[in-house]
Structure formats: C-alpha cells, structure tokens
C-alpha cells in the first residue's frame, strides 16, 4: 500500500524478510530527491525493518511494518513502526547484533520509542548537504 503527497511517502508492508528490499526500492527515489546519502538511507531503513521482523515479530509474518518518509529542504526523516513485542534479543537471527549500531552510525539522528499499544518506532533523520 502506497500513499504519496508531494515529498512524503507512506508504505505499509507485511512483517516479512522480503519487505526490506521492497522498502529499499520504494524509498530510493525519495532519498535521491532529498539529496541525502542514498546508501546510508537504504542501509538504516533496511536494518530497522529487519529488526521489526526478527525482533518485533520473531520472524512470523503476522503483522505489518509501517514506514513513513518525509522530505524537506534540509533532508529526510523516516519512521519505521511495528506492533510487535519490542526489541528483545532473538537468538534465531542471521545478524550479528550490528543492526542498531549501523542505524546510529549511518543516520544523522536516531530515536527509538516504545509504542503505547506495543511495538517499536524508530525515527531516523538524514541531513542533506548544504547547497
């Protein structure tokens, strides 16, 4: 599901591993238009979705991941929200615990919030270089 309005994009994807690639495809044009570091955006968003699928939903495609991206004159803000069980460790993961450190490293600012009805919201800001 895709909603567009100017430089905003909202995407709702199944909480499944393949959704990370789908989100990368859909957000790339907006990141390019916002003049932010495309590789950094794709990596950080993909890590956030991976966390939602692996940690939030424990690999069960029983929910959705909501992605909202808003471009402005200074860059791009992206939120990734799930309704899972939170960011508790999951030993059944192909990763090596680098997802959160990579989000922090490649976004200019990151916040992690517990959603009131369960789940996690990750908000990432990517600054565009000065013109």
């Amino acid at each position, binding site marked *: 599901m895709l909603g567009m309005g100017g430089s905003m994009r909202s995407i709702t994807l199944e909480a499944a591993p393949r959704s990370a*690639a789908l989100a990368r495809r859909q957000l790339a044009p907006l990141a390019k238009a916002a003049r932010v570091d495309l590789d950094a955006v794709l990596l950080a968003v*993909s*890590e956030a979705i991976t966390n939602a699928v692996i940690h939030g939903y424990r690999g069960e495609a029983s929910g959705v991941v909501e992605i909202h991206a808003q471009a402005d004159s200074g860059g791009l803000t992206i939120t990734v929200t799930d309704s899972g069980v939170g960011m508790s460790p999951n030993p059944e993961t192909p*990763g090596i615990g680098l997802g959160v450190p990579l989000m922090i490293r490649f976004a200019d600012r990151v916040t992690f919030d517990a959603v009131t009805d369960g789940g996690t919201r990750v908000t990432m800001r990517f600054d565009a270089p000065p013109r």
Partner: protein
Amino acid sequence: MKPLADLTLESVEGVPVAALSGEIDVSNATELRARISELTAEGGGGLALDLTAVDYLDSSGLGMLLRVASAFSDHGKELRLVVEKDSFIASLMETTGMDGILSVGESRDEAVAELAGKR
C-alpha cells in the same frame, strides 16, 4: 519474484572462486550461507568470494560472511573476500571492523594467487 542475489562458482587455477551479485539482506543471507557451504563442501584449501558485483549488503550479510569464514576456519579452510576499493561495502567492512576480522582484498587475482600458493 526474481532472486535478490545470484551465486556462481568456478575454478581458477584450481582454486574455487565464488561470485555473489545482487543484494544480500535478511531475506536471503541464511540461504546463501547454506549454498556456499554446499558448493564448497568438498575439497580443502579455501575459497575466494568475490563481492564486487554485490549492490547491497547489510548486517545480515555481514553475519553470513562471518559465519561462512568461521565454518571454513573450523575445517582448516580459508575464506578470502574480494571487495571493490572505496565501495560502500568496503566502507561498511571498515566501519564495523570486519576488515580486521575477515580476510579482505581488492583483487580476485591476488586472492586466487594467495590461495593457490597455500595448497
């Protein structure tokens, strides 16, 4: 749906050389690790794994590479990665310190020569 990544294997001067292309993430990292292990189950020495045609790789991909290298090491084999200089993957390897844990070079020929020299 078209696979995100492709894996090919060839023999160069008797050294197995695998080439990955496409994207490596949470959706295919575990499967790719199994395929690499399967393709290289027989034979000793090592494997040159060429990542220069990989367009995208994240922490799931790094985990896959680390686990492949660890499994190789357990069997007395060596994994040599080939990564394009100044690429995002090279930057990712450096940022995470993986370039100090894994054997990473920029040339497939050098990787093959080094592995051939150790047989």
